[in-house]
């Protein structure tokens, strides 16, 4: 670099970029399929294409992993840092996306699947009633999801704030659209999407403003230069601090941390449930992956400055999530508040710092992702004439009607509550352990307290299901199709295995937890 203004094309390492290229390519292909393949065959073709692309990308990530060294991790003129931790994050996003995509494709639960056929038709009109009854759901969801996954993978490996911002938009825009596509309760869905979009755009503005301030201080937007500039720049450090604060706000919004959590319950409730599962699992991974990279790679010299503030945010997030979960009467909203509280626990791991903090965060993300997908998959099964019956009171006595279903859901709730021998316990133990190791005992104190509060709403659902008589309005539990069953089985198995024998994954996360600057 330097003073000569010769524009050089950066060298691209295609082996490292292959997973993202596969996804973006498949997404473009998906758009073409929408145009050329007959409607009847589209769902199957799109689903197979989506799964193949995700699996192909996963294979590329796995093949790449043994060959990554400190020297060859960065590519595209250091704009991307596809290092061990980055590959792990990409792999997690892909695996979780594969499981959620299975839920997208389910068409046996509801005629035409969980998505609306044409989102633009006015709700409640003659056309709308017609499409609700007859037409199969939109298949554009597959390419949209692939774009989102590709964006997330870019997001977690960005080594440069500008690339990170672009990736943020690439994965956010498809999500806004996806939220609006629910087949039932369409107004709720559209409202959710609009709220998510407006607030998301607002948060992006924070991020962008922060980026500008950081550039003002460091004169660069890549993490290596930012890191080197700390305390070595003639500019006022307040610029950098304010920039970091605003970057954090943008990222904490995606992570659903308080006080930037307000959108979460509405969006989780309004979005089609498969989309909610996808967001809850994959967006969390992406948001925390990026947040960790920003804090660990770009700004680790400022640990003394950001830890107390983010610590307060973590405490607020845990408490608000836990206490408000207690008052919820809708299961999707309950899980939304639980996801807020879980963002707080993840922050404890992140702020624990060091290798332990990072590895505990990675473990938590995977464990939580599978758990939350399985939980939302369960929600898709309890239905009545109006679609999913998510009001808590409706679930009373479900244990009598469908013991197997209630048994599995009980297991998942116990995992959420962090009861031992489930992945929830090990994950919480790991992040709190990292918090202790990083001398953040106060965070662990609040973590333990809030998780004790949070156990209450989960166990209340358990009691509702088992220890109440089913009423006349108790909805029925649909038999899941092969796709949902597979997703469920994977989620439940992983939750159990990670609870009983977490050693291999813990070893893996410990080995991969270093970012390359």
């Amino acid at each position, binding site marked *: 670099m330097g003073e000569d203004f010769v524009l050089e094309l950066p060298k691209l390492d295609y082996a490292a970029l292959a997973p993202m290229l596969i996804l973006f390519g498949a997404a473009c292909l998906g758009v073409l399929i929408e145009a050329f393949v007959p409607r009847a065959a589209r769902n199957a073709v799109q689903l197979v294409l989506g799964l193949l692309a995700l699996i192909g990308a996963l294979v590329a990530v796995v093949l790449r992993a043994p060959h990554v060294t400190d020297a060859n991790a960065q590519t595209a003129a250091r704009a991307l840092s596809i290092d061990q931790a980055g590959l792990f994050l990409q792999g997690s996003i892909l695996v979780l996306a594969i499981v959620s995509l299975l839920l997208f494709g389910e068409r046996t639960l509801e005629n035409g699947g969980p998505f609306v056929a044409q989102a633009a038709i006015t709700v409640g009109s003659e056309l709308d009633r017609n499409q609700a009854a007859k037409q199969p759901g939109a298949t554009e969801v597959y390419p949209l999801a692939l774009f989102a996954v590709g964006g997330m993978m870019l997001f977690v490996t960005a080594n440069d704030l500008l690339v990170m911002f672009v990736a943020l938009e690439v994965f956010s825009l498809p999500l806004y659209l996806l939220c609006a596509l629910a087949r039932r309760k369409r107004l*709720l869905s559209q409202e959710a999407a*609009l*709220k998510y979009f*407006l*607030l998301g755009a*607002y948060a992006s503005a924070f991020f962008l403003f922060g980026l500008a301030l950081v550039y003002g201080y460091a004169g660069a937007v890549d993490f290596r230069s930012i890191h080197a500039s700390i305390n070595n720049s003639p500019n006022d*450090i*307040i610029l950098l*601090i304010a920039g*970091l*604060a*605003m970057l*954090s*706000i943008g990222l904490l919004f995606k992570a659903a941390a308080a*006080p*930037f959590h*307000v959108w979460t319950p*509405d969006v989780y*409730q*309004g979005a089609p449930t498969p989309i909610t599962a996808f967001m809850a699992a994959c967006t969390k991974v992406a948001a925390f992956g990026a947040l960790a990279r920003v804090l660990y790679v770009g700004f680790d010299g400022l640990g003394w*400055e*950001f830890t*107390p*503030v983010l610590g307060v*945010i973590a405490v607020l997030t845990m408490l*608000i999530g836990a*206490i*408000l979960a207690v*008052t919820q009467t*809708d299961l999707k909203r309950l899980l939304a508040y639980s996801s807020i509280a879980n963002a707080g626990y993840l922050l404890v791991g992140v702020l624990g710092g060091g*290798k*332990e903090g990072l*590895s505990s965060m990675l473990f938590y993300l995977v464990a939580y992702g599978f758990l939350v997908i399985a939980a939302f998959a369960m929600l898709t099964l309890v239905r009545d004439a109006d679609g999913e019956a998510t009001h808590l009171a409706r679930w009373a006595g479900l244990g009598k009607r469908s013991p197997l279903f209630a048994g599995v859901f009980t297991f998942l709730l*116990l995992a959420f509550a962090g*009861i*031992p*021998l489930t992945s929830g316990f*090990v994950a919480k*133990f*790991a992040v*709190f*352990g990292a918090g*202790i*190791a990083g001398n953040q*005992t106060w965070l662990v*104190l609040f973590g*333990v*307290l809030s998780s*004790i509060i949070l156990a*209450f709403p989960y*166990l209340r659902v358990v*009691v509702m299901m088992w*220890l*109440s008589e089913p009423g006349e309005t108790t909805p029925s539990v649909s038999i899941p199709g092969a796709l949902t069953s597979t997703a469920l089985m994977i989620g439940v198995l992983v939750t159990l295995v990670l609870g009983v*024998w*977490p*050693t291999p994954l*813990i*070893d893996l996360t*410990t080995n991969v937890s270093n970012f390359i600057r």
Partner: protein
Amino acid sequence: MQPTLMLAEGAPAPVVYASATGLLSYMWLLIAIPAVSALILLTTGRWADKWGHWLGCASVLVSFVLGAGMFFELRDLPNRAVQQNLYSFIPVGSLKVDFGFLFDPLTACFVLLITGVGFLIHLYATGYMAHDPGRRRFFGYFNLFIAAMLLLVLGNNYVMLYFGWEGVGLASYLLISFWYGRPSAATAGKKAFIMNRIGDAGLVLGIFLMFAQLGSVNYDVVFSNAGLLPSTTVLVLGLLLLLGATGKSGQFPLQAWLPDAMEGPTPVSALIHAATMVTAGVYLIARSNPIFSANLTLQTVVVSVGALTLLLGCIIGSAKDDIKRVLAWSTVSQIGYMFLGVGLGGGAYALAIIHLLAHGFFKANMFLGAGSVMHGMNDQVDIRRFGGLWKYMRITWLTFMMGWLAIIGIPPLSGFFTKEPIIVAAFARPGWTGWLYGLAALIGAGLTAFYMTRLFILTFHGPKRWTTAKEGSVDQHPHESPLVMTIPLIFLALGSIFAGWLMASPVAQWLTPVVGPPTEEHPKMGHLTITVLSLVLTVAGAGVAYWLFNKGTALAPQPAGPVVTAARNNLYTDAFNEAVFEKPGKWLTRALVFVDNKGVDGVVNGLAALVGGGSGRLRRLQTGFVRSYALSMLLGGVLVLGAFVAVQLGWMG
């Protein structure tokens, strides 16, 4: 192999556990058998209804036989503490937790108590629950409880203990709420859950503190190094563990849930809320004796909790009319004695454990006896409506009498051999506190005699005060329970008679490797004086009760003086909890809901919208407007930005 724990002068010898061999290497089976049985019972359908309860009983019996085999094998080993690590459970950096078990004399006592008494209660429950449609499910939860309780006492580190701790809590919660049709049962379940969670928080924080200070949660490492910790750390650690113990064991200040837990079926009260789970707190403290012995202040706190709770339990128990509640408060009070014992430290650890074992027999005996009475009296629980039952249920009467004589400490029954030494040990505490705690224990003995005699006389003797069809209730036709219920009663009665005399000195010897050798006590008064005093008080308490209640009592509670009224209201401890914990908690929640849903709206829209929206807005599906969300984000953003800048400029320390 060196002895595992020596009371040498300087630094204590490190705690060393041997590896398990032979039969002992199968100790995981102890847990696995009831766990698998629970799984079968809870997952199979109605076709298992016919034989499910027998499977439940058999699994506990097999565990008992296996445990007894291991007990005898352990006896012949040079190092009577063997452990077995199945695999490394959580290996994160410096944080290593093994999935491992430990079998030592303390564990052996608990394994035999849990499976032995547990089997008898399972057997009894086959009869007691015979007509309940949910019997198979009941035995599933019951087996689950046994497995979790065994996990609690068999773990070789605090995380394993916590696994069991959560497991028994869960099983207890499910079993209290078992008769969910009754709203009181649901409320009781909730109360138990909340109070236990508060205790659990203490335990978890204690475990994390241990990890932070010692880098390990394994018993051997923690105990070997506990003496090296700074005194304040030991105090905090001990207090956290004590909080956990008080939650599980129904001790002050977390005692309120235990009497309410009696809403569950009677065998549950006998097994979980009398004989085993509620003694987990005593186990925790006895197990952690190197920590508790390392700080005098800590011991004083434990002793005070014990003494206060034992008096509290006695006083409240004297004013209750529900047969199971009286027994429940009596349990609270007896566990108070055990806490007193473990708090005194030294030789008193063993005394507390011996009392715990004896209590397991006589309290289970009396609970099952109470169940038998209820069985014969159409589920009546009010002792004011019993009377003269001895003629109709002879076996229940005789076995209950053994339990009664045992708990009030009449020689030669078991209570005499186990409670007496604790009172003597309390008097032996140095300084004026010896008088304080000694007298508390002594007065407790007199009060125990009073309320237990009241219970016994009102139930089995005096005039009949049964309900009749005329007063709108049912006519009573009391009858003895079937054999399957009375046989466990007979066994437990035999235990109530002989257990104390048989166990007192051998068990103290047996526990020496874990808690240290029995010590010579030098109480404030002569040993004999104390014994005589306590016997005199006991006979006096029993005599007063006999004199007051032999002629029966009023059919309903009568107006009474302030002391009795206070005791009837649990000495206002519930009111205290409500005012100090419940109300603020509710207000906090309401305030948060308000801020999250309406507060910002209110700011934007003015008061009118707030009033107009009223409660209706709370019921709407989605409450928020994007503008108010955005505003709250902006406020949050400004705060975060301000905080970052403030920290940077050094405004915040």
